[in-house]
């Protein structure tokens, strides 16, 4: 259990640094920014207590916010994803699945994993950019940000998942 926490803490730091040092500065076509740290929440295993998922996500979101001067934006949206994640994961795994099941391409299968990850990432980008731009100043720009970032984030997640499977 302790080893588990340290491992998660390590990944936490990695996701945070990768986001603030590299990915934050990527703006493909001026709209698509990979928000890879949502992958951290997607990977929470089944047995993690619900308050645990919430706190991990909130702190990660808050730190990302501090680095990118968007106070509360990532924290609010990531906490929302973390609240939904256990329930949403429940739809795809049977009751008698192992307790420490970690949602991944390997454990869920391609189709189920897509059903699991795509809506969550899309929802995350939707909430994130809605909060960030708030006034829907340019609705087209907003839409491009949501879709573009979701696609880039999902591409990265699938790259890692495929690499892990081998």
């Amino acid at each position, binding site marked *: 259990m302790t080893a588990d926490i340290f491992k998660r803490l390590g990944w936490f730091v990695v996701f945070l640094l990768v986001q603030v040092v590299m990915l934050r500065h990527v*703006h493909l076509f001026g709209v698509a920014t990979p928000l890879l740290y949502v992958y951290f929440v997607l990977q929470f295993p089944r047995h993690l207590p619900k*308050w645990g998922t*919430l706190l991990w996500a909130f702190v990660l979101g808050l730190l990302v916010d501090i680095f990118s001067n968007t*106070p*509360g934006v990532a924290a*609010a949206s990531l906490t929302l994803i973390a*609240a939904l994640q256990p329930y949403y994961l429940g739809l795809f795994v049977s009751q008698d699945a192992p307790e420490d099941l970690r949602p991944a391409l390997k454990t869920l299968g391609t189709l189920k994993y897509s059903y699991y990850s795509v809506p969550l990432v899309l929802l995350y980008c939707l909430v994130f950019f809605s909060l960030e731009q708030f006034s829907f100043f340019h609705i087209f720009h907003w839409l491009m940000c949501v879709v573009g970032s979701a696609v880039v984030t999902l591409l990265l997640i699938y790259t890692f998942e495929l690499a892990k499977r081998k």
Partner: protein
Amino acid sequence: MNNLWEFLQRHSHWFLFGVLEVLSLVLLFQYNSFQNSVWFSSANTVAGTIYQWRSEVASFFTLKQANRDLTLRNYHLERQLAHLRKLYTGLTRKPTSEEEKGMEFLHQYHVIPAKVVANELNRADNLLTIDRGEADGVKPGMGVACGNGIVGVTYLTSKHYTVVIPVLNCHSSRISCAIRGHGYFGVLRWYGEDASHAYVEDIPRHARFKRGDWVETNGFSSIFPEGIAVGRVEQVYNSRDGLSYRLKIRLSTDFGNLRDVVVINDKSIVDRMRVMQAAKDSLKLNVRE
């Protein structure tokens, strides 16, 4: 009672969820009114240090371009200086003493060189972070410029880092500027999307100028001395109410490649502010009487 307790325990994570969301939203909506929120911005020490490492690595790869720009700029300025000096001595005929006076005038501007450690372009309200803070004499509300022109205004300061509101900030950046050589003044605004263009609004209808004219700071604000380049007029539009002109200008500062900046600490500004404040106070008194 027992049931209630059990119910609360079973759903405790929803309460936690509510608390965390409220906390985030408070941060989101209160940020701008918290002058002390420096800890929640990239001006805090940890975030600043990490960004500094990153920018030191990144600056290595842009040194060549920066050098070339600076050399060009230097050459340009030296030519200009020589030309002006010739004009000046021609007019005054007393080269030495007058020149000294001119130099004195320059001394009143105290500039603090700084490096940009974090920068962004693609949001509606961009912010940038520089590696100088209160320990170096930076205070909120000072002007920031680079070799090519205006950058923005300092906003939050910690001991060693400062968050700057650049021109590229939809909601918070309003800098007073004027058309060089004509003096008509307006307000510099930015509306997102394109990091190389901004707008100058409220230029009066009777103003005469042409495309390609330079826009510079006018020294009316308490932040910038006059004469810092802002950009060149590219398009002229009518304002929505038809009462003034709206100029689309090409910014002379390349915000996408910003590394070395200076924070301007103008001593005369403090005096000017004091006089302004005194004038305002006396006006108030008059009204009351």
